[in-house]
């Protein structure tokens, strides 16, 4: 009807939709789901990398990794805030994550086994994330688009940092080079899966395209990622774990081997190696922290009622 047409016209004019603007319920729901998943991914994503902070091999790397994981927490914060502008609270979204109802990026259900995985995650996982996220900086929903601009800037720094770790390893000792190659072998295919099912299988993405929440198809983004990443691997002398990968001059793109969609589906439905551990860890952190949150609330309530508490001490 009329409202939908007018809304679509705004979208088509590339106008940003803002929190108080009227919007179709489907648009709101799609955004809430997508921003929520994105926020949850940042939060869960802290765990596999966090796993190596205490064992990072140098002070410089330790600091960079802790700062990176901290950035991810920060991204989670912006994104939860963006979702809050659509009327869902952070508590509500957290509850959905912890109960297993909400999804997060399946890539974080793989374990980080060696230090090289920290390089591979930065290079490939953040690299793939950026491919997904750069178009989102032009997303039709203003708060999300603005959050993504900030996120993308930091992610691209993380991606370069990850690549730099891989380069250091690839140019290091024989053993370090093996670590790097092994990490690439394990993370390459899951990274390709980050773009989601093939366009032929993907549901619900036409409407997202029309609403300019999404601007490229899964396969298009995957291709962009491959095109950007293959030369980077070659440059540092690592081999892609896909014998069918080759440049197709006609397509001006890489042909690649078949993705193991059965594995993808198993991980999505909860059967990956780390799905349960990730949720267990998030739930434990949340449950262990309950008394802290309650105390902070009780204290704030009491302080609001009781103005004679010295401000300088309590602030």
């Amino acid at each position, binding site marked *: 009807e009329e409202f939908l047409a007018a809304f679509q016209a705004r979208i088509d004019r590339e106008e940003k939709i803002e929190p108080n603007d009227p919007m179709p319920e489907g648009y709101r729901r799609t955004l809430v789901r997508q921003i929520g998943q994105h926020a949850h991914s940042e939060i869960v994503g802290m765990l596999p990398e*966090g796993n190596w902070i205490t064992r990072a091999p140098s002070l410089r790397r330790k600091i960079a990794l802790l700062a990176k994981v901290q950035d991810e*927490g920060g991204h989670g914060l912006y994104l939860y805030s963006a979702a809050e502008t659509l009327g869902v609270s952070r508590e509500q979204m957290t509850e959905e994550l912890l109960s297993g109802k909400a999804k997060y990026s399946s890539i974080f259900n793989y374990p980080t086994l060696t230090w090289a995985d920290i390089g591979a995650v930065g290079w490939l996982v953040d690299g793939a994330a950026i491919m997904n996220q750069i178009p989102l900086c032009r997303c039709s929903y203003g708060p999300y688009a603005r959050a993504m601009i900030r996120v993308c800037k930091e992610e691209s720094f993380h991606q370069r940092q990850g690549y730099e*770790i891989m380069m250091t390893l690839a140019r290091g*000792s024989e053993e370090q080079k093996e670590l790097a190659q092994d990490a690439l072998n394990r993370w390459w295919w899951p990274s390709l899966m980050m773009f989601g099912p093939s366009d032929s299988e993907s549901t619900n993405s036409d409407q997202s395209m029309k609403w300019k929440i999404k601007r490229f198809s899964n396969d298009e983004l995957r291709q962009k990622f491959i095109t950007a990443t293959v030369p980077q691997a070659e440059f540092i002398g690592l081999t892609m774990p896909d014998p069918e990968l080759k440049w197709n001059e006609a397509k001006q793109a890489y042909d690649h081997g078949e993705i193991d969609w059965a594995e993808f589906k198993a991980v999505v439905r909860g059967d990956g190696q780390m799905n349960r551990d990730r949720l267990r860890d998030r739930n434990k952190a949340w449950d*262990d922290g309950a008394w802290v*949150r309650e105390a902070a609330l009780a204290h704030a309530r009491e302080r609001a009622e009781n103005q004679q508490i010295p401000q300088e001490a309590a*602030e």
Partner: protein
Amino acid sequence: MAAADVTVPALIEIADDCLILGHRLSEWCGHAPTLEEELALANMGLDLLGQARALYAHIGEIEGKGRSEDDFAFLRRERDYRNCLLVERTNGDFAATMARQLYFSASMTPFWKAISASSNDEALRGIAAKAEKEMAYHLRHSGEWVIRLGDGTEQSAARMAAAVDELHRYTGELFMVSTARLAAIDTGLLPDPEALRAQFDQTIDIVFATAKLSVPEIRTWQKGGRDGLHGEDMGHLLAELQFMQRAYPGQTW
């Protein structure tokens, strides 16, 4: 500036405090009670690890034997780490972590301030000027939490009181003048920590009063770290901290 044999052992104590406490804080990553605290704990960890790095680099330069920051951080024996016992205590619950942070930052804020004002080591004054601001933030942040928890719910008050009961006895070592420290005080490198103790006590008194906590009476202050005599948790921390450097010796990361 003091000779290397005075400066190196004196600054190692401080650098090790920063390294070990920074490491402990980094263990919280992914496990904090709120997202805001994830960021704050990481921030404080980063500050401390950054201070450790600056100090080790400075120590290495003064020592002049070519030891890098990583040689100091990763490749010493447990008995050669000179951090105080307070910073190596396991994180415990959030109350214990915040109490530990309050104690440490309440001692380090005036410490760095005194150094930045009057140490005879210019590079150290530079490190101190930055660290002073950072520690003031840690003090504010942890002080707020000690107050919130001490004067929060019944449970949080009990946990905060238990944390204080557990950790207060480690604060004496923050002001203990080791042989290494004494020499550095004599040469004008470091301030006399006893002179800073009054400020520490005052800070703690104010925070505890607002937090409805009482300052424990201590019969025996725990010490040992400055002589490399650590607790049993330290070895497990080092097993993690040193893992890569030990397992893959002599490589560049």
